């Protein structure tokens, strides 16, 4: 019966597949949301107009949203070959997309288009969209150079003049010193000279101003160990830890709280882009403006930008090109300028009143256009995200740790990056996996496992027994078919991929054979070592503490009454809330400067750790979050306690055992199986922690919270290194299975089952 139903279900899916697969008419699929309601309505209107001009065509706009993970969705679609005609991506990912052959070169379309005039766009911006062989990958949406925000009222309060456009590091440092004050005399700085930004793109201007470089122009050698680079790092380190005139703005990492600058507690804020003007326009307490970044040996700044591109999965590249021209055209670009999305790439739109907006702050929007002369984009290397992740750990060490050895940290950055670049060069030489080999290997492995099962399961019984056996196995068909299709099969694919090298931006038939290279890399990968360490530390803290807390609460709430039932519901609440919401709430609560947790600690006169920003505290922070979601484990304990025979406890009480002795000698031993159950499920959950660090810290500071599953995810979707991600995942699986097996065997002596053994 279930076997027949499973078959029917699979058949109906296959039939439904044929029906849905055949879509009639031409379709243009656009994924170019700007993260703004007005823009979304505008792009919808544009689509309808476009449909009107092209009878028989329908334009489908897919929403993307601003939530965590959205930027990785296109990679799934491209990997799967889902038709997608137009895409908006961040320019930091452009080189990776283009390098993997995931984009259509639009140069021929531009060449054939008489209306195309490249002088209409900022040359610096358009330059970033050119490939090495004359390709043109797309057009800019909006961009922003990095500038410095300044609190004008604070400046005049200190009797200081507004910095000139050619001010220097020296001027900057002097102003920052003047503006750092301890207003209430409690020995803690209340107002800072500068609130610094700390992601790589925002640090680049300092490096370039000092004459340093990240990588040489060919993308072959890291230049982070060179004196100029080190000098820029020393400068930032000195601002933070010698002069102590700088802090970090919580606002970028945590949009829910007011940052230092917004709270009037920093004279400068930056280097940062145009996007902050949107939030800062609600500031009423003081006047503010933007200024050029101070210059070092030379003037330089970096640029953040989003661009429209046509992915290789486009079915209508010609129409996509036409639509892309609309999005980068005057009307849409002026609308983007009006809503404050950034600086439009189209010169006419940027120089119009729509962008310069004389009536609203900042007064000097022109600065964003002026600094374009000295603006630079990232080096055109294969994968900026990967470089960023390699460098970020050391960078945060320099910025956050007072006793950091800056030159040594820079040398480590260079070594890591060199190793990565060498691996990239090697890549082209690998042999392609023959077509169908992947499917064959997985199919073969599945058949092999089935054969193994059939051979090993024991001697053939009598005919009547066999009939009963068949009936039993039939009941397992729904489970088994799903197990093979959705778990074992994909896991085996991952196992084969662990021996290969593949980027999700390439088609699946372009998988290259890497042998055991991915596994060999594990040994020398410092990120892997620290992520293994962080995961182990997290599990070692949160599993026992969670068990203890859950058990304690359960003892408190074991009796059935209206009050306990209410409190139990309250305790279970955190487990009900979606993990993403939980993470967002905790990020707010644990904010080092303004978070309620630290405000309470300070009120109690206790030390207030920087939680998520302190490498030593970040793992304990996640333990805290997990302890708060301990409700489910508690319920299991409550249920187990309620199922106990009260007579045993009563007998112990009559014998004169105190409450402690009763719980230790009578209650606990009876709970052996439940303890083991909670221990194992807790361990599995702890080892797979993902959503919280992904939303709250993205693995930082440094690599301190880059837990294994997070590293797996980043390797696959941000470093485009699926093979390595699969190798990591299988290592995690093996380690976890071994740990669980050991626990199970090791506790056998202490765990007593009543009746039938499990």
């Amino acid at each position, binding site marked *: 019966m279930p076997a027949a139903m499973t078959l029917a279900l699979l058949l109906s899916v296959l039939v439904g597949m044929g029906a849905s697969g055949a879509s009639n008419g031409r379709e243009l699929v656009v994924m170019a949301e700007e993260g703004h309601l007005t823009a979304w309505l505008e792009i919808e209107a544009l689509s309808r107009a476009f449909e009107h001009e092209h009878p028989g065509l329908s334009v489908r706009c897919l929403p993307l949203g601003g939530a965590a993970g959205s930027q990785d969705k296109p990679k799934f679609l491209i990997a799967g070959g889902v038709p997608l005609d137009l895409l908006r991506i961040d320019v930091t990912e452009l080189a990776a997309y283009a390098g993997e052959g995931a984009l259509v070169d639009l140069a021929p379309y531009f060449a054939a288009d008489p209306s195309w005039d490249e002088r209409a766009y900022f040359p610096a911006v358009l330059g970033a969209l050119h490939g090495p062989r004359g390709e043109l990958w797309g057009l800019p949406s909006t961009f922003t150079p990095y500038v410095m925000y300044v609190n004008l009222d604070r400046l005049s309060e200190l009797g200081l003049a507004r910095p000139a456009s050619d001010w220097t590091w020296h001027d900057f440092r002097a102003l920052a010193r003047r503006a750092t004050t301890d207003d209430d005399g409690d020995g803690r700085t209340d107002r800072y000279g500068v609130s610094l930004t700390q992601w790589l793109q925002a640090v680049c201007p300092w490096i370039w101003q000092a004459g340093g470089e990240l990588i040489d122009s060919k993308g072959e050698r890291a230049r982070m160990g060179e004196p100029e680079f080190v000098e820029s790092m020393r400068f930032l380190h000195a601002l933070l830890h010698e002069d102590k005139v700088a802090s970090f703005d919580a606002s970028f990492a945590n949009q*829910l709280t007011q940052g230092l600058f917004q709270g009037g507690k920093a004279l400068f804020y930056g280097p940062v882009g145009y996007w902050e003007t949107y939030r800062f326009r609600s500031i009423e307490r003081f006047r503010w403006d933007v200024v050029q970044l101070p210059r070092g040996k030379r003037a330089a700044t970096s640029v953040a930008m989003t661009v429209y591109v046509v992915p290789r999965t486009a079915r209508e590249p010609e129409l996509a090109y036409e639509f892309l021209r609309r999005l980068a055209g005057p009307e849409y670009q002026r609308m983007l300028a009006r809503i404050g999305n950034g600086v439009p790439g189209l010169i006419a739109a940027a120089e119009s009143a729509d962008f310069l907006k004389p009536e609203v702050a900042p007064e000097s929007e022109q600065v964003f256009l002026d600094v374009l002369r000295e603006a630079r984009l990232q080096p055109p290397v294969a994968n900026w995200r990967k470089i960023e992740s390699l460098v970020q750990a050391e960078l945060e060490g320099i910025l956050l740790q007072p006793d950091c050895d800056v030159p040594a940290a820079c040398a480590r950055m260079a070594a890591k990056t060199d190793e990565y670049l060498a691996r990239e060069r090697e890549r082209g030489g690998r042999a392609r996996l023959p077509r169908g080999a992947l499917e064959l290997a997985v199919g073969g492995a599945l058949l092999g496992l089935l054969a193994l099962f059939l051979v090993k399961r024991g001697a053939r019984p009598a005919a009547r027994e066999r009939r009963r056996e068949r009936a039993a196995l039939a*009941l397992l068909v729904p489970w088994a078919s799903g197990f093979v299709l959705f778990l074992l099969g994909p896991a085996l694919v991952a196992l084969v991929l662990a021996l290969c090298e593949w980027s999700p931006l390439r088609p699946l038939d372009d998988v290259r054979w890497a042998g055991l290279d991915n596994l060999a890399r594990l040994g020398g990968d410092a990120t892997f070592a620290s992520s293994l360490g962080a995961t182990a530390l997290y599990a070692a803290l949160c599993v026992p503490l969670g068990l203890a807390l859950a058990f304690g609460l359960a003892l408190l709430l074991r009796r059935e009454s209206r009050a306990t039932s209410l409190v139990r519901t309250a305790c279970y609440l955190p487990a009900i809330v979606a993990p993403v919401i939980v993470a967002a709430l905790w990020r707010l609560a644990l904010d080092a400067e303004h978070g309620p947790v630290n405000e309470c600690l300070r009120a109690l006169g206790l030390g207030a750790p920087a939680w998520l920003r302190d490498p030593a505290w970040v793992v304990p922070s996640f333990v805290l979050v997990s302890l708060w979601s301990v409700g489910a484990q508690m319920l299991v304990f409550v249920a187990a306690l309620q199922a106990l025979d009260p007579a045993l406890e009563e007998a112990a009480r009559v014998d004169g055992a105190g409450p402690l002795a009763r719980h230790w000698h009578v209650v606990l031993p009876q709970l052996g199986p439940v303890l083991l159950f909670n221990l194992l499920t807790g361990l599995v959950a702890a080892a797979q922690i993902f959503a919280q660090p992904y939303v709250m810290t993205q693995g930082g500071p440094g690599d301190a919270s880059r837990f294994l599953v997070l590293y797996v995810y980043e390797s696959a979707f941000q470093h485009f290194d699926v093979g390595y991600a699969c190798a990591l995942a299988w290592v995690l699986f093996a380690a976890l299975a071994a740990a669980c097996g050991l626990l199970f065997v090791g506790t056998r002596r202490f765990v007593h089952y009543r009746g039938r053994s499990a």
Partner: protein
Amino acid sequence: MRILRALVLVAVAALFALPLWFVLSASLHKEGAGLGLGALAPPADPQWHNYALALERMGGFARFLANTLLVTVLSILGQCFTCSLAGYAFARLSFRGRDALFVCVLAAMMLPDQTSALPRFLLFRTLGLVDSYWPLVLPTVLGGAPFFIFLFRQYFLSLPAELDEAARMDGCSAWQAYWRVFLPLARPMLATVALITFLATWNDFWAPLVYVLSPEKRTLTLALASFQRTFDTSVELLMAASAVILAPCVLVYFLAQRLFLRGIRVAASKG
């Protein structure tokens, strides 16, 4: 002693319920009030229209609710059926290789989901099922969650052996014994599994994010995420929308708490 215990209970409840209170309280503040500790204090003039505004801004709340309900109900039915069936077979029937297969169930629990996410996507893509609800529902009907299979197995192990004999005397096949005798007895366990599945599916974000493309097919969490735009989301409205999505979870849990505990109790007592 009693007063002390009451105090501890209140403190514990408050500590765990605080964030939810935060969501509620923040959702009723005036737009742009900001979110410091101030949001924890209930507003003097609750802005109930934040809710109407939030739903309107989500664009098609009724439709997203219907989508979410469809996926949730199908997932619950799928999990309950498949997992109870497998749990029954593992607990009450004997066949060669049973223990090896059950180890497979347990091992599946340890496989991080991120490992198989991409290959699974490629599979659904090959089947042409991207941008439908099949990828969200099918793995529950076929396969089921290992954890639930484990729970059902524990539950069925706890039932007396006479049941099988009685069923066999009546001439029931294995399927009939499951359907007529064991499934009806598993009601507390079914409630437990249904509740956990409800919470997981209702709150799930990753699977819809990856598989749903069309705007009109979005589920509530996905709609909430695209509502959460970079520039023009007021936190108050975001909290109001979150509260709307949370409310059914709290309600369902509160109503089902009894059955839920009973289900776990049986499973727990057998370990």
